[in-house]
């Protein structure tokens, strides 16, 4: 069978996937930077993270335009159709992750105003899992790796556990000492943002699963 009858379409599909990877890479970087800004109380780094959001928004529009053009001009079927449909959905999730990284960066700036009432231990650990999940979900997308998707869903359970435990812990601090509410409230928000990012990553996993198997199902 001649595999080269649609060489230019294949090239454009590859380019589309590369664009998504670059977009995911930027968000991965933002996630790393905003957590570092929080831990190191680095306001400049937080601002840098916030500024990167424009790049992500640009990718979002470019990739959507690219998808629509391929749908209109190539009339994709079967796997090609599923790939483009998956990319169209995935960019929305990735764009939201970027927004949450910005939220974390903004909160990090507020928290940098005064010394924290307690050292940060678990939040960096939770953030590390989320970063790994994002990296792995993009790997699964590129490598057509459905086994990796299952691993990511397991990691999401760990993130959910951190979310519950840290929220309880921070509420406990607030009950004991109202003077920490200002900071503890914001740390709860950061925990919440990380949990939301992980949820969007599992959405990405569902799209990759659909792209590979043709089946739409909830993975978490």
């Amino acid at each position, binding site marked *: *069978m001649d595999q080269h009858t649609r060489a230019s*379409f294949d090239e454009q599909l590859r380019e589309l996937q590369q664009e998504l990877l670059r977009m995911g890479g930027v968000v991965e970087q933002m996630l790393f930077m905003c957590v570092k800004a929080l831990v190191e109380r680095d306001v400049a780094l937080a601002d840098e993270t916030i500024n990167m959001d424009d790049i992500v928004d640009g990718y979002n529009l470019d990739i959507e335009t690219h998808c629509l053009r391929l749908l209109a001009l190539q009339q994709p079927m079967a796997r090609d159709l599923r790939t483009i449909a998956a990319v169209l959905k995935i960019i929305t999730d990735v764009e939201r992750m970027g927004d949450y990284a910005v939220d974390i960066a903004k909160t990090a700036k507020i928290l940098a105003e005064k010394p924290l009432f307690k050292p940060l231990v678990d939040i960096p650990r939770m953030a590390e899992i989320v970063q790994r999940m994002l990296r792995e979900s993009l790997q699964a997308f590129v490598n057509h790796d459905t086994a990796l998707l299952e691993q990511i869903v397991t990691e999401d359970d760990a993130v959910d556990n951190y979310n519950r435990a840290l929220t309880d812990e921070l509420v406990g601090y607030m009950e004991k000492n109202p003077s920490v509410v200002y900071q503890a409230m914001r740390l709860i928000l950061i925990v919440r943002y990380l949990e939301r990012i992980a949820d969007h990553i599992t959405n990405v996993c569902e799209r990759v699963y659909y792209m590979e198997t043709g089946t739409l199902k909830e993975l978490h």
Partner: protein
Amino acid sequence: MVKETLGLKDIVAEKLTKREAQSGPVSANDTISIRNLSVYYGDNQAVKNVTMDIGARDITALIGPSGCGKSTFLRSMNRMNDLILGARTEGEIWLDATDVLSPATDVVELRKRVGMVFQRPNPFPKSIFDNVAYGPRVHGIRRRDQLEETVEQSLIRAALWDEVKDNLNKSAMDLSGGQQQRLCIARVLAVQPEVLLMDEPASALDPISTLRIEELMSELKKDYTIIIVTHNMQQAARVSTYTGFFLSGELIEFGLSTTIFTTPREKRTEDYVTGRFG
């Protein structure tokens, strides 16, 4: 005549068993059952041992690269291959209780039940009226009022009436290509068939005429069983409920069109519908 001795439940059960190998429409109302159909042109086997059921009042599309046997398969349904020297057919085709391939079957009667529309519109060099009245006249209808009624109804069903009702005596050759094709469909409908075979009915037409034919097909499927051979995959996806993919004379995959065009089971189907070969 084994089939007549079986009850409906037995037939459905038998079809369900055979379906395990090739998924496709199964219902008690199947009008066409094809069993182990092979067609040879001399030594060349054009259709290889195809088994499938085609549902009544639905549109089934047959797709596949040139020379894959889909047109030959289509022409077996009303024995058009009989007209080709050296063509030989094996297996069974049942149209309800009629054994299509039996030498005892009246081919003229069969072709009245199973009408055909071809790639290029082929109106007779006669008036619009005489084209549509041709079939009923062949089948013995002579009364003018009866013929007029049939011609009007057929042209209405073929979505051509409004455009030609004031010019029924005009030559069919003066119509546009799209109108001529709808006239040919009206001509088939005039003999009140059950099944419409369409061999690339829109491939010689412009895009608007093509969409009109597709609209017409969706209308007609309420009353007729339609089988369409098409090279246009978007057309197959748009109009049909079921799609069969042929390759080198074999039926590779047969199932719901939504499945064939989004998540085909076979790699070869996937390669074809995504345009990776063919």
